[in-house]
């Protein structure tokens, strides 16, 4: 009985981990001004600001792209 419980707990834990991994894998990556969100989060406000301005300038110069 005790062994059965342990087995259930272990498989539940494994399923939770696999499920969370699949969830992470299926969620599409976000891009902010051409920079992946994970990279974006590491930047300082000053660095983010210059990327936004640069991207805005690029949009003005190349309206079709």
């Amino acid at each position, binding site marked *: 009985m005790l062994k059965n419980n342990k087995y259930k*707990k272990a498989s539940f*834990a494994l399923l*939770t*981990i696999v499920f*969370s*991994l*699949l969830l*992470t*894998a*299926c*969620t*599409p*990556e976000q*891009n902010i*001004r*051409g*920079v*992946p969100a*994970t*990279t*974006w989060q*590491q*930047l*300082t406000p*000053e*660095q*983010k600001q*210059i*990327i936004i*301005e*640069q*991207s*805005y*300038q*690029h949009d003005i110069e190349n309206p079709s792209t």
Partner: protein
Amino acid sequence: MKKVYYLFLCSMMLTLAACTPPAQQVMPPLTYSNQIAFHDSQKADLYWQTGSQVSSEAPPTQDYNDGIGGMIINSVVNNEMRSAHPGDFTYTYGKAQQAVFMTSLKNTLVEQHAFKDVELITDPKAAKPQDVLITVNFKETRVLGHEKNYQIILDTELTIKNGNKPPFKRTYLVESKDSSVFSTKSFKDQQTDVSQQLLNKVIAGMTQWYTQGH
């Protein structure tokens, strides 16, 4: 006991979510350890120009100990991960790294009072005619493959324009040093290495421009 188990589970999931993939790591701001040997009384406009970026993709990983079933599942998850999160597998010296470089250069020039004032601009038309216009053009940034430990090569051009005088131009080709497959240097360290070399060269170029009578 149950609490400990759930705590462990939650911490594991958080750890998984918090780990930043190596390809997405960005170098910290750069520092210039030497003293800048000039002080100009004009304001400088620092213009950042981007060019082409050549990236490199991480090779697929395959664990042959998983058996055929494991290999198929592994391959499906891997493909799904790559299509949903291309940034996790693409090594590039892109906008983020260039922004860190440009802000570091600007802060160094401000801290050392190399000019009266320094402003970072993205439109050269925003520069006033009485200001010194410094353009750093990242003509091509290239990241080599896994077998070269994602070595970074930067092809950049520095142009300094001051009124009607002929522009001062220099081209710098710099590459990160450690390119062996056995190297333990991280991609973040490669970024710092190559950017630090470029920072030193750009400041040396500015000093040369100043001493040549700007």
